[in-house]
Structures are given as structure tokens and as C-alpha cells.
């Protein structure tokens, strides 16, 4: 990799990192935080990013690891994807995170790339932003002035633009535990195992008690259907009360499918070599149906 030149700062603690970041930004430097480097380094290689300085937090001892905190699970920003997907806490208590993380790139990337880095990069083609949005995660960020919390619905501002103020570092994410009765699925469509999602769908579905198969609540968010991850509110609303009985039985209309046909509402799908907007809209509908069926089934 032959990137443009930059200053390299490797702080010894998170506090020092916040200070370094604050100082650099005050000095007018364009600073980027480097953790696992799996998104930032390719941008540097292609000279699509010209930061004047990198603050490398990749070797800090914390915030790292997964912790069960009662009503939510806290995932430290520096936890690698591999650690996340192997964590029994994650698998049992926030399974959607495990399902989506397992689809991230390949083992080499998952051993270096971090949970927080992937989210702070705010790439709508990444798998985790849609999951965070669907689950209403809370982002915990820190600066020299202290900590604040940002709800997922406000974190993803625009393409590659998170709601981080200058001098702020993402330290971790509170992932709410959904209670019993919820089913989960992450449906990812991609050209090769290592490609980004052409479209992805994160789905959480809660069916009514008593085995009736009626949707009580659903949370759906889409990967790569706009400059930010997209919450499919129209689908969520239309699914409420829909019957999960086998598709098309008794000649009744498949209300699940009808609901999922609204998946692309409010999306602004991108165009790239792997799909135009029209194809992506179509995929969003098909994949949302599959994700909801899998989550509820």
C-alpha cells in the first residue's frame, strides 16, 4: 500500500486517544481514527482519503469485549468481528448481531476488523449498521468532555458520515435484548463470499403467544439501499397482525408478502456494478420476504 503521507499517533489509553484526537482537530488537522483498518486502509491505498493524521487505537486494551448488562448487551468498540460472532453472550442474547457478523467479508477481515470500526465507518453497505438500526441500539461516544449517547436512528447521518462530533470516539454500543418470542434473521445477497451486500435485510419478528402465527411486532432494516441504512417502517407497520400461516393457504392472500412488497419504500438505492436501483428495489422486496419468513419460522 502506498498511501499519501500522514502523521501517525498511537496513544497509550483511551483518554490519551481522546486528547490526541481533540488536539489534532483543534489544530485543523483532518484526523481519522484507525482501529482494525479493514475499511480505512483500502481508502488510503486508493488515495480516496487524505487524512493528515491517524490516531491508532487498535492496540488499546479497552474498550474491548462483550458484557451482559441486564436489559442490554454492551459490545466494546474494539471487539473484533470474530470475537463478536464467537461470543456466547452475543449468540444467546443478541443473536441477530451474531448472524450478521458471520457474513462480514472473510475470516481474515473478521479477525482484524472491529465492531465499532465497522459502525463508525457508517458505510450503508456494511452489514452491522442495518442491524444496529433494526435493534434500536444506542451508541456510546467519548471525548475529552465526557461521554454521550446517540440512538441508532440518529447515528447514521449520511454516506460514510456518522453523528460523531470532532474529537469523539465511539467506545461501544448498547444492544437491547429483545425478550422471549422474537425470531431473527439476516438475509444477505452478494455476488461473491467476500463482496459487500448488494442488498441485505436485518429482521426481527415477534409472533403472538399461543402459536397463532400472527405478527405482533417486527423490526426491519435494510443494508445498501441508500446513503444510510434504511429502516423499513412501512413493512413493519404492514406486518403487524399479519398471519404467518403457510403462504397462500386457503387461497387467502399472503399478507406477509404484501407487507414485504413495501420494503423499498423510502429507500434511495445506489447504482454500482453489482446492481442498479430498480434491481435493488426488487431484491429488497424478495429478500425482506425471505428474512421475515426465516425470522418468524
Amino acid at each position: 500500500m502506498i498511501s499519501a503521507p500522514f502523521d501517525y499517533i498511537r496513544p497509550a489509553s483511551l483518554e490519551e486517544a481522546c486528547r490526541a484526537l481533540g488536539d489534532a482537530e483543534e489544530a485543523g488537522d483532518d484526523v481519522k481514527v484507525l482501529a482494525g483498518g479493514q475499511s480505512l486502509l483500502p481508502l488510503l491505498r486508493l488515495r480516496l482519503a487524505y487524512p493528515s493524521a491517524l490516531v491508532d487505537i487498535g492496540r488499546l486494551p479497552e474498550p474491548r469485549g462483550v458484557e451482559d448488562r441486564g436489559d442490554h448487551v454492551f459490545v466494546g468498540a474494539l471487539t473484533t468481528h470474530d470475537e463478536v460472532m464467537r461470543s456466547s453472550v452475543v449468540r444467546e442474547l443478541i443473536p441477530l448481531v451474531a448472524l450478521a457478523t458471520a457474513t462480514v467479508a472473510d475470516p481474515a477481515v473478521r479477525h482484524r476488523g472491529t465492531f465499532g470500526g465497522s459502525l463508525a465507518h457508517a458505510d450503508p453497505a456494511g452489514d452491522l449498521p442495518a442491524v444496529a438500526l433494526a435493534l434500536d441500539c444506542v451508541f456510546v461516544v467519548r471525548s475529552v468532555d465526557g461521554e454521550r449517547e446517540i440512538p441508532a436512528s440518529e447515528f447514521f447521518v449520511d454516506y460514510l458520515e456518522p453523528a460523531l462530533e470532532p474529537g469523539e470516539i465511539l467506545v461501544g454500543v448498547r444492544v437491547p435484548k429483545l425478550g422471549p418470542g422474537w425470531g431473527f434473521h439476516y438475509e444477505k445477497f452478494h455476488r461473491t463470499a467476500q463482496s459487500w451486500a448488494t442488498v441485505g435485510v436485518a429482521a426481527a419478528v415477534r409472533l403472538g403467544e399461543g402459536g397463532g402465527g400472527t405478527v405482533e411486532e417486527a423490526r426491519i432494516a435494510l443494508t445498501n439501499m441508500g446513503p444510510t441504512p434504511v429502516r423499513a417502517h412501512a413493512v413493519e407497520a404492514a406486518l403487524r397482525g399479519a398471519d404467518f400461516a403457510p403462504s397462500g393457504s386457503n387461497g387467502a392472500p399472503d399478507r406477509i408478502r404484501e407487507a414485504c412488497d413495501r420494503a423499498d419504500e423510502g429507500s434511495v438505492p445506489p447504482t454500482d456494478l453489482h446492481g442498479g436501483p430498480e434491481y435493488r428495489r426488487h431484491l429488497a422486496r424478495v429478500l425482506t420476504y425471505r428474512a421475515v419468513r426465516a425470522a418468524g419460522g
Partner: protein
Amino acid sequence: MTEQLDAGLVAERIAESDQLGRPSDAHEVGRARRRKEDARLVTGRTTWTDNIQLPGMLYVAFLRSPMAHARITRIDTSAARARPGVVAVHSGQDFADEQGSLPCAWPVTEDILIPDHPPMAVNEVRYAGEAVACVVATDRHRAADALEAIEVDYEPLEAVVDMTEALAEGAPRVHESGNRAFTWKFAQGDIDAAFRDAPVVIEREYVQQRLIPTAMEPRAVVAATDGETFTLHSSTQIPHVLRVMLAMTTGIPEHRLRVIAPDVGGGFGSKLQVTAEEVLALLLTRRLGKPVKWTESRSEGNLTVHHGRDQLQRIRIAAERDGRVRGVKVELLADMGAYLMLVTPGIPLLGAFMYSGIYKMDAYDFTCTGVFTTKMPTDAYRGAGRPEATFAIERAVDELAAELGLDPVEVRRRNWITHEEFPYTTVCGLTYDSGNYEAATDRALALFGYDALRAEQAERRARRDPVQLGVGVSTYTEMCGLAPSRVLGSLSYGAGGWEHATVRMLPTGKVEVVTGTSPHGQGHETAWSQITADALGVPFEDVTVLHGDTAISHKGMDTYGSRSLVVGGVAVLSACEKVKDRARELAAHMLEASADDIEFSDGSFKVRGTAQGRTIQELALAAFAAHDLPDGFEPSLDAESTFDPDNFSFPHGTHLCAVEVDTETGASRIRSYVAVDDVGSVVNPLIVEGQVHGGIAQGIGQALFEEAIHDSEGNLLTTTMSDYLIPSAADLPEFTTDRTETPATSNPLGVKGVGEAGTIASTPAVVNAIVDALRPYGVHDVRMPCTPERVWRTIAEARSTGPAGTGGPPEASAAGSAPTSEGGLR
């Protein structure tokens, strides 16, 4: 003889070959030896060009045109010269008198246009990525940074991206002389008679999309001089050809130029080239008196390594109602890109003789027009011309079968050359020496479970499953073992097709084999050692193979076109035979017997009917000591051989592919893949297995994933591996492979070559399967690569244009939203 080689068996073979020493009755040839070169290659304890560090070495970086076609009106390098660490900055103008023109060694017609091809553009750029200036600096980072300080003014000219438009009246010109490089014709038999009143005519157009070869090791060059002689290290497949061509291009006398290809990490034809960077590295080291190194980045490679394929094919088949083919007519447009490089115009012609495939017919007619466009030149890429030909004929034969309502295997049976008919001279004039298409096909059908898959297909069609199943057939042959020099001469190629080997008996009985082939992943060190061990009766471990350095291996034609074993391996065998002849003469002298009475077995020369003898090692020492040699006997057992084949070789095989097509998303998933190849006799089954696997993967890459895409301005959009997709193991199915062995009769080893077989066979097998899955929807073709979006659109278009009630499964609501004009790239 057929022999199944599943993974378990291969593992067993490896264990066997590791356990056995060398029992005296065992042959090395045919043994699944693990490759002796692999330990150093996979651990990296070896020399790649980019590892080379020379004292005082400087680093080169190239500034490349951001436009496909433009006039250079001004270049200002002064700011770049002032950057730290910068030693020199040059534009093309600085080298205008010195750099010459990159060579094209294959003027296929007398009136071919071969435009001047300056290594660095001087006045005009003709493809995006063409070098316009270079920086030489004390490290590679400074060189790259300084590129940003070079100012270039371009006056844009119209890009020429599309071949058909390039040939239209009044089209903008890539070169003053015009956009038509050549038109080459070939005809046999009475093609008009074949098509006149033909009961069935199939006419199809296929697009061979442009591919990027993507060798694992990017190109790299190190050039150095002591003022008198020049040494060029390059990640090349052709050190010998390169030396000759560079001597002609740069004016450095050939005897003062040494070219070294150290270990090379793949080429697939992309390193069968004389590149601008190689020439400029030599010129820079000559100018600066210091060693220089250049290593490309992956994105730079995507732009400026020559591309492959890129043809528009129109194929017509005239046939009887029973499916028997009367004649084939082919018209090609071949995209040359902006210049003719080493063998650019010859690539489509390597396919010209293969459009008749394995089939008998009375007439054949072929026309190819080479077209200039403002894109990176095309040239050899795995299979080079033959995959294109095989794709067209194998796709078209499937179309013929569909048209006639016949099974595609049955149509092939009615047309192919039967095993009793060999040697068989095809309509194209090639004499196929041996083959057994029936055996390979029967074996493949059995392994594949053809009938069961057809039953499942019918069942899915009946139940209108959104996931449809397709079966694809490809019965290929290829023209390998390039090449008889006389034939190359008749095709106006600039060189011969022989290969050279030297076998040196060292005083201690060890053996050095010097080969003119230039392995870059193929395993020649292992295979040549096996051939030598058997021929001379020495242990496999006692043989070292030297290659890739013109000061060590002075003569060779290098590695491409499945030629190394078929030509180079035979040269090794032939040199070994000469060593044996000399050893026999020496043994006869030492044993006081007549040479006619000396028998050779197991490395010993014995007097017939006695136990008296000398081992080859003893004879090597005796020749070295030279105390007691026959009169006039030179004190050496060494021998060399230059082998020029009489004929090509013709590997063949049957590949079968089952694909599940998800009609809702357009995704294609290969469910099973069976390859039964006949590559003649086999020196090392493990190496053959590896070549087949890699080849199939690469052919699947063309079918499903790969395409170099340009925008309308001629800019390459697929400059990274997230845009130019190549399949990894995770994207591929298990391959079931097997072989039939019908030895070649044209060489003493009976070998045919295997380097390109998988790639040639697999592309049509996959696409045939996808089209087969979608025939109920009215689909007759899917343009490659068969991306999910393209498959989805093809289904939708067939539905909207096809006759009503053509039987496609009903549309589920989400699946049925037909595309409108909202967009999407092709």
C-alpha cells in the same frame, strides 16, 4: 484406462509417494508427487522480483493517463523534480528518440496495420492508464507522492469504446491509419452448399467479454547495469523471448542483456508480453547508471496488464433434421485495444481452427476482423482464442439440440469423431492424432448422475419451482503443445515453437536439467525431475531443474499455450536419451564390451546376460576424471536437445455442470460439476488435478463473475477487486474430476498438455446450464458474465417478448415486478 482421482485418493497418493522411497520397479512418471518447489513458494523463502534489493537501487512510479483518448498539450515536471527524494522525472518526450516501439511479433496479414507503440506516450494517449511520465526516487513512497506534482494538460479526443461503432463510417479514429487492423479469412469446403436448403440453421451472437488476467503476483521489474551489460529481472513467463525482443527494441546487444524470471506468481498469459515498463526500466537504468525497480499495484495492474478475450462472435450452423452438422460459419470482431502488442492479432486466430470442435462437417468458413479501440490492448489469456471458439460451438450445439428437441448429449454423439476414426483430419485441416470422446462422455454422465438430474429438472419445471435446475454440457477439445514451427511460419508468426533442454551429469552422479520452459506456478521442477529420474534411472531427489535465467538457460521459447510438457518435457526426455547413449558408449569401453551388448535398466549399464555393469553415477564420475575414455570421446556425458513438434496435441474431455437458478433474485448456484479430461499420459496426477481445478475456477469466473467494464468515455470502472470479481474457493462447488487416458501419438511421452483445459471447457458448461434452466421462460441466451441482475432482466425480457403461455412458472408478487427503464448498468 480410466482412473478416478477424488480428493481422498489424491491424499492417499500423496501419502504413498511420501512413504515409498524409490523401489526399483516403480516409475516416477505417473506418481502423484507433491511439488518440490512448493515449500519455498508457500513460505515465501524465495526470490520474487519485488524481493530483490540492489545497492543504490531507485524506485520508479508511472503517471498514467486519466483519459482514454487525448492529445497531450503540456507536461510540467518541475514541481515533481523538487519533491524530496526525487532523482529524475521524465515525460514520454524525453524518451522519444530512444524508446522505440513495443513489438508485435504476429503480423497476421500482409496489409495489417501495426501502429507505432511508444512505451511512454509522447503526443497522444490512446487508453486510460497509458504511461505519460515517470518519477524515479529513493523510495517507492516518494516516487508515488511526486506523481501528484506532475502537471499534464490534455486536449480530449473522442473515445472509441465499441467495436461496431469503431468500424462505422466517420467514426473517430484511434490511429490515423484507421480502426480496422486486419481482416483474416479461412475457408474449407463448400460453405454455400452446406447452407443451401439446410433443413435447420442456427444463428447466434455471443459476447466474449473483456477479462483481466489477475495473476496473484503483480508485475514487477528490476533493471541494473554495470555500464557494459544489463540485467533485467522481471515477473515474466517469457525470459527468452523477452531478451530477444528487448535487444531488438532497445538496441542493447543481445549478448550484453541477461533476463531473469525468478519465481513468478502466475501469469495466465498476461506475462507473455514485452511491456512498456520493462523497456523503460532498462532505459532508466542506462540513463541513471543505477538499478531501478518498479512494482505495480493491483489497481495499476487492472488498468495496464493486457486484457483478454473481448470478441463479438456470430456463429451459424447448418444442420440436418437429425442434428447432423453440415457446416459452420463464423464471423468475429476482435477488440485489439489501442495497440498491437506481442501476439495481440494472433489470439483470435488460435481459435480459428477450433470452431469445428470435436465434430465432423463438410464445410467451414471463418472471418476475423481486428478492431482498434481506445482501451488497453488485449493479448493472451488462459486458452487464448480457443476458449472463445469452444464457447461458441458448444453453446451453439446446445441451441441446435434445443431447436430440434433433442438431448444435447445425443446431438453431440451424432456429430463427433468416433474413436475408431483417429487420426482424423478435421474440416479445419488439423489432424487430431488420438481421442476417445465416447469414453470420456460416458464416464462423465455416470459420475454426474445425468438421468437423475434431468428427472429433478422435469419435476421442478412441473411444480414451477422458483429455483430452476439446468444441466450444461461441454465436450471440448483444444489445440495444445504450441507449436510446430512450420505451422507458426505459415501463420506469419515471428518465431518458432521448439523447446530446448540440457541435461548435465555432475561428477557425483547428481543431475542438473536446464529447461527453456519458464514455470510460473506449473510445477515443472517436479515433473521434469520425474521424467529425468525415469529416463536416467536416478533418484527423483538427485535432480535439480534450472530455468528462467538466460545466462543459465540460454535457449528457450518459454511457457504458454499448454506447451511446456508437450514440447519442453519431450526435449528433456530427448536430452536424457542422448546422455544415455553417451553413457552406454563409455560403459561399453570400461566393460570391454560392444555397445550393442550393453543393456540399460534401473540406472545401470550391464553387459547382456552378466552381472557386470556400471551405474550411471559411476559413469558420470569416470567421464569427469577422464582417465580412461574411448578414443575421441569428449570428457562429458552432458547432452542437449531442441525439440520441434510435428503436430499439435489435442486434449479433450467432457464437462457437465448443474446449476440452480433462483428466478426471483437471478442468482446462479453451481450445484455439481463433473470434469472428465483426457490429457493423454500423465506425468504427475496431482499437478494435473491442480491445473484442472484452477482452470475450471477461471472458466467459471468468466461465466459468472468477471468483466472489465468501461464507461462510455473509455474509463475502466473495474480497477479494484471489489469491482472486478474473481471467485474464491468459497464461491465454487466441489469439483468431481476424473480422467480417461488416450495417449498422444505425436510425442514419445504420450502427453497432451493440461494448462488450459479446465478454462476452455468450463465456461460453456456453466452458461449452457443456466440457459437450460431458463428455457421454459423463453430464454435462449444470457450474456456473460451471468450476473444475478442480468439473469433477472433476461427472464423478465423473455417473459415480456415471448409468445403468450410459453410455460414459465407463474410470478409470485415480489418476483414479478418487471424491470422498467430505471437503470442499472447493462
